[in-house]
């Protein structure tokens, strides 16, 4: 396979890559010019035709989402950019924001034109200090250069981008949690309908998109639909609901690999290729035990499932929740799956916003059960209980408001199903890996 030439990461790591001057020199803001010469509907159609699917986790077709906005709407429409990037293992948004913020701002400006919005809010997770500084500097440069402001690019149109820093919660990445948080409230996801495209930020029609999605928009306008569709995987003809997995994707590789990092590859690369060809394999000659395909909400691949393609369709074929954020975390055979799962559960019970009874109590209970197991007091019945609890929470069974609880359920479901013998062995051996007293948080 010829080496894939990065597009989204092309400028990352170059001197002064975050500056407007270098961005312009590299052809920056030409795509925006092109877009402004088109009608909003034409731009939307380009994005729709490209088959771009959201990079934030759910993989919803971006152009289609834009068409859900009310037609002939008077009054404001908002674009909310999701840079909360809290899914464990995910860091591609950070790299883009730190090293090439203008690429994102250009995508935002193009998207605002397409959805007829004069105002975008960029919701940034608090922990990203450098992203904050670089983005704010880039925004300031854009105002000074007339790219943003009351007469954006001389088009006579207004465009403002506000950078908002969150206060540190995973749930602020859920799109309606993000909207509540932007409104200054506790980030409790909203019940849907109404969906944000109808009633979102400040009760106005709102589109929520991910940072990487915005970067893709820039390049689609630059290089065209054909280019984008030449990368990735076309729809599975056997699956009428598959919208295809086109374009380049930033895979975040971490865990037990020799060369962790952010790799830009065509959608559909296999986990094996990513880990062994790009990531340089597993250190110390150990073996893969489990691989998280796209952030821990997506569950686990077992060692013999590494050949599935990491596209929007692939992980689901082996029982995972989906591609998620394409954050691939490798777990080698030196680690107990019980400890891995405990860590996942602890994360989700800590991050559950606490609105829905099943998620609030279920995530905390699963953590307590695993704590007990890790202190040597587990029973095999606990495995059935874990499976039952994980099967009862989420928007898929319909028992919760948002998808956090599906994400909390999936690692448990996958681990119990795919690694049951290891759990049983662990329990039978009376092994302890925790010094945590039972019941402590």
């Amino acid at each position, binding site marked *: 396979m010829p080496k894939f030439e990065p597009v989204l990461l092309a400028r990352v790591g170059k001197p002064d890559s975050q500056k407007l001057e270098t961005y312009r020199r590299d052809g920056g803001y030409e795509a925006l010019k092109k877009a402004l010469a088109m009608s909003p509907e034409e731009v939307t159609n380009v994005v729709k035709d490209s088959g771009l699917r959201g990079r934030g986790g759910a993989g919803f077709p971006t152009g289609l989402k834009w068409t859900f906005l009310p037609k002939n709407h008077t009054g404001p429409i908002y674009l909310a950019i999701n840079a909360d990037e809290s899914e464990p293992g995910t860091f591609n948004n950070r790299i883009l924001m730190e090293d090439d913020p203008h690429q994102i701002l250009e995508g935002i400006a193009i998207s605002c034109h397409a959805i007829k919005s004069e105002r975008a809010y960029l919701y940034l997770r608090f922990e990203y200090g450098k992203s904050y500084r670089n983005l704010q500097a880039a925004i300031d440069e854009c105002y000074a250069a007339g790219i943003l402001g009351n007469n954006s690019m001389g088009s006579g149109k207004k465009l403002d981008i506000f950078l908002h820093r969150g206060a540190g*919660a995973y749930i602020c990445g859920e799109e309606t949690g993000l909207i509540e948080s932007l409104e200054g409230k*506790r980030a409790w996801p909203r*019940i849907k309908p109404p969906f944000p495209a109808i009633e979102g930020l400040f009760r106005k029609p709102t589109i929520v998109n991910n940072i990487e999605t915005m970067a893709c928009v820039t390049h689609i306008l630059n290089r065209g639909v054909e280019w984008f569709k030449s990368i990735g995987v076309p729809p599975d003809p056997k699956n009428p609901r598959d919208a295809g997995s086109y374009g380049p994707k930033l895979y975040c590789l971490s865990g037990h690999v020799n060369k962790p990092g952010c790799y830009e590859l065509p959608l559909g690369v296999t986990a094996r290729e990513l880990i062994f060809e790009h990531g340089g394999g597993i250190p110390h000659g150990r073996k893969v035990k489990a691989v998280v395909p796209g952030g821990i909400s997506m569950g686990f691949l077992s060692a013999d499932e590494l050949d599935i393609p990491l596209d929007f369709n692939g992980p689901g074929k082996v029982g995972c929740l989906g591609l998620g954020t394409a954050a691939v975390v490798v777990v080698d055979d030196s680690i107990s799956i019980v400890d891995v799962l405990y860590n996942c559960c602890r994360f989700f*019970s*800590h*991050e*559950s*916003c*606490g*609105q*829905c*009874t*099943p998620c*609030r*109590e*279920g*995530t*905390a*209970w699963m953590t*307590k*059960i695993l*704590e*007990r197991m890790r202190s040597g007091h587990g029973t095999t019945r606990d495995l059935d*209980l874990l499976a039952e609890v994980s099967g*009862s929470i989420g*928007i*898929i*069974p*319909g*028992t*919760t*408001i948002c998808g956090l609880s599906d994400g909390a359920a999936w690692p448990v479901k996958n681990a119990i199903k795919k690694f049951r013998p290891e759990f049983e062995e662990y329990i039978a051996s009376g092994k302890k890996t925790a010094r945590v007293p*039972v*019941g402590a*948080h």
Partner: protein
Amino acid sequence: MPTVIVNDKPVEIGADEKLNCVQAAQRAGVEIPTYCWHPALSVVASCRMCLIEMGDKKPDGTIAMQPKLFPACQTPVKDGTVIVSNSEKVKQAQKGTLEYLLLNHPLDCPVCDQAGECFLQDYSYRYGRGYTRLQEPKTLKPDKDYIGDQITLFTDRCVMCTRCVRFTREISGTAELQVINRGSHEEIDIFPGEPCNNKLAGNVVDLCPVGALCSKDFLYKQRVWWLQTKSSTCPDCSTGCSIRVDQTGDVVKRLRPRHNPKAQGHFMCDDGRFGWKYIHGPDRLTQPEMRSPQGAKSHDWDAIQPALRAALEGAVTRKASAVAAVLSPWMTVEEAYLLAKWLKRLSPQTRLALGPVRKEGGDDCYPKDVRGKALPNPKFTIRHEKCPNRKGVELILQHFQGSVIPFDTLLSEVESNQVDTLFLTGGDPKGWITESQAAVLGKLKMLAVLDLLKSPATPKAHYVLAGGSFAEKDGTFINHAGLAQAIVKAIRSPENARPDGRILWELSGRRGLFHATNLRREIGQEVPSLAALSVGDLGEHGVLLTERPTVAAPVRGEKVTAS
């Protein structure tokens, strides 16, 4: 008519009714358990107690069910909606939600004030699994008695339904309550130093479906299953909230609001909720008293009533226009009617005045904004007119006399000796007569005072009649909007005090027993402006005066024409 199918049973709903699945199921007589949903609050659909299966009946008769569960409270119904609340899947989900809610619940029912009227108990019994699978220690949370002057929080009993939080945001607008922390460590709390002391605060105790928020006043006073309850009407302002009076052993234990769409809605204010303590207070008049000019005292109703009647009738014979009665806006319509009719029958020249109507500031409307300013379209109003029945008493006065004489005018007539015989009614527990006003009463030849509590007028009276509080009598109050509502006797009057209706019934020489419903029918027949009362039974929601009487009752009693 749109038809909804609930557990295979079709029910019709109104063409433009907007119902959710909980309400539609109710129509079919099916209970869908809920915690977070409340008809007066916004929908959050977070407790997940109300999960159901849902589908659509197509015009061709086939039914397409959705694969997942839906919260009934969040799901609107339309023609053809299919609701299934008794399938295995739904029962499993109900069991699941209850198991989750009980995981960290202390289950201290034996010492919990809510036990007996607790939705966690009731639903666990009806829908739960009956045993716990939790082997780990429960999460503990600290009790918070600083939540409010009247309310306390047993934090670990909370099911996080957020009804209380939404109430303070959406109804009172004062927003004292909030959720702190996250996930299973969440707790209800206040901002430090800003307790929940708004005038509607007590409602959060009623809204709380479990024993988390409790009323400090009621706490540990009585197990609820011993309480005996009567539907009644709050007397403390002209809003006239529909209430329930809970008592045991002739002692009121608490008042609670009763939902009445024709009156106040779902709630009541703390002035009314906690304002009844005087009923059992030390200032209560507990026996009648007659102080004859010779100085002999009597506390015997059987001696006092004939003497008072004779004295009053004698005075009318001497000079009718010097005889007057003051009808307090705290009287029921029936009491006002009996007194007015008695005097006017003795002579149309007798004078009837309206007692003092206590007013405080302006109407207090909710929700308020952050600065405490009322927002437009109030959801709850505490009215500035602090009496229950000015309207009803005025209508009686207008009927019998044409005009309403104000209290001050009558006092000046006493001062100028135009009136020398007076029958005064009080009833306002916050005081209705000042010392200087009472000084004028010294000029009277005969003064009878019918009241609840000692007042500056009592020492001046020749006859003190110990009356009954709103909790001790039957009758009618007419609120600011002309809604006639029943008050119902919940307890017996203390010691030798008597309900005013009985006193006036006997004084005016009527035979038989005072019976509010019959008397209401009589009033309805006789007083055109109160024709609506001829239904007799006002029902749970009361009757608007503008409503046409539905039942014509036989006329009883003699005709008296207005002078």
